[in-house]
């Protein structure tokens, strides 16, 4: 088989760009699942919601999708607070019943998808912006702007979040909650408030991730489901609550998926994430067993 080096490098670059985007998608899970131990499998649904809102604002008002996402950030934050409050009152306070919590989020995932189908139908939706279309060329390397822009903004988002987590009081409180709730109570901070804030932040990231998604590819309601396997695989591989780990794992998955799509065909790409998931579960069980 002829292995043109250009093809290889382009596939790798495409993978890295994709990985940057995956990081934005997974960041929310790194916070809600990695740090707070809330299994929010409805996260992709929130992302798709973000995509559709960006689509609406883009189609009706001509607003740039990323800008649109930033505008609705507060709404998503509030939504996150609401969801967490319901989750907390119904499940966490009553004691551990992971089954119910999971079913709750699964139900939310499902409802969101169905409502979107009812409102928008199953047609693919896309947005328009100046950078969707042109492609930069560095020698023989293609850098489609519709991938590059989301990737860069996504990495910026991760950096901002990481700084916030490590340098602000609230951020450090969140990281403390991830380690030890008791310690936090001794600090006289209310762990529930902190957790709610963190969860709200994770949902807010979904708004941006949604905008990135619809920039990169056309969206229809069931697209979210492909991402469930991906985000959890990345989160686990990246070491659960670690943001830098998430970025590295995202890049890795992006590159492997890109190679698979290039050399075996795009219809195999969804299976890659599962392979990853199985691999990470098999190789890093110690980090996951009985916390």
């Amino acid at each position, binding site marked *: 088989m002829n292995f043109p080096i250009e093809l290889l490098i382009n596939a790798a670059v495409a993978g890295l760009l994709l990985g940057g985007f995956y990081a934005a998608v997974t960041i929310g899970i790194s916070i809600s699942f990695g740090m707070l131990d809330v299994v929010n499998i409805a996260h992709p649904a929130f992302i798709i919601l973000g995509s559709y809102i960006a689509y609406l604002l883009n189609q009706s008002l001509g607003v740039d999708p990323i800008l649109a996402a930033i505008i609705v950030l507060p709404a998503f934050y509030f939504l996150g607070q609401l969801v967490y409050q319901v989750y907390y009152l119904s499940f966490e306070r009553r004691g551990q019943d992971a089954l119910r919590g999971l079913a709750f989020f699964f139900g939310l995932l499902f409802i969101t998808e169905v409502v979107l189908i009812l409102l928008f139908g199953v047609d693919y939706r896309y947005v328009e912006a100046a950078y969707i279309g042109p492609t930069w060329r560095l020698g023989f390397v293609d850098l489609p702007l519709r991938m590059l822009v989301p990737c860069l903004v996504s990495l910026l988002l991760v950096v901002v979040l990481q700084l916030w987590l490590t340098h602000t009081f609230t951020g450090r409180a969140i990281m403390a909650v991830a*380690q030890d709730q008791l310690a936090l109570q001794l600090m006289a901070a209310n762990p529930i408030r902190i957790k709610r804030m963190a969860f709200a932040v994770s949902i807010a990231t979904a708004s941006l991730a949604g905008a990135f998604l619809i920039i990169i590819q056309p969206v229809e309601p069931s697209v979210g489901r492909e991402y469930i396997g991906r985000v959890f695989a990345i989160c686990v591989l990246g070491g659960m609550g670690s943001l830098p780990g998430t970025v590295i794992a995202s890049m890795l998955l992006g590159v492997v998926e890109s190679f698979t799509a290039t050399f075996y065909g795009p219809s195999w790409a969804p299976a890659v994430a599962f392979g990853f998931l199985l691999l990470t579960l098999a190789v890093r069980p110690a980090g996951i067993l*009985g916390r």
Partner: protein
Amino acid sequence: MSAPLLEIKAVGKRFGGFVALEGINLDVARGERLGLIGPNGSGKSTLVNCICGTLNNETGTVHFEGRALDGLPANRRTHLGLARSFQLPRPFMSLSVADNLRIPLIYAVRRRSALILSPQELDQRAIELLGMVGLEPKARRSPRDLTQVEMRKLELVRAMAAEPKLLIADEVMAGLSHSEIEDIIQLLLKLNGQGISIILIEHIMRAVMSFSQRIAVLVSGRKIADGKPDEVVNNPSVVSAYLGQ
């Protein structure tokens, strides 16, 4: 002097940056009564978890009857003869009180004796065990109907049901009255009389002193003393670290 029943060598366990246990060396002889004391958070329950396989110790080894336990899941260790009660009671809420005891009777005991007990025999044995701690009247009730104290007794008796060679009783006496404490001590002494080694983890010093042949003291994840009750109680470092409080 035969080989120790339980040998803990250089066992260590960390949670992230927090060192829960470091360099623990402890032996328990066959038929011995060991008291394990120490302030809250000193690592006693973590040590129990490592011995019983609920947690995996990162360094060091645990041997039971000469056999290395590393990597063995908790249920296998119970089959070998280790049993423990949980400091915070964990009854099976959807089973009746008596049925809670059936579980170790079916899954732990049967393994060793190859004796298949009929449901009636299992039930009889369960009621018998409940009688030892006065829980017989509540045999058919749900564990939800038990008081905190009764739940602790259930924890103890559930561990006993597994017919262990080594029983670890983790703070079973909290909240008990004077006479109830006496009853538990008598019960444990009777078990010990049958050759069962017992590790008693308690804060009630009177009970520990009267019961134990030997006492080990854990402070901040390290063992700072190990010897006869009188020696340990008069050990200055023990006094300042724990008893002085």
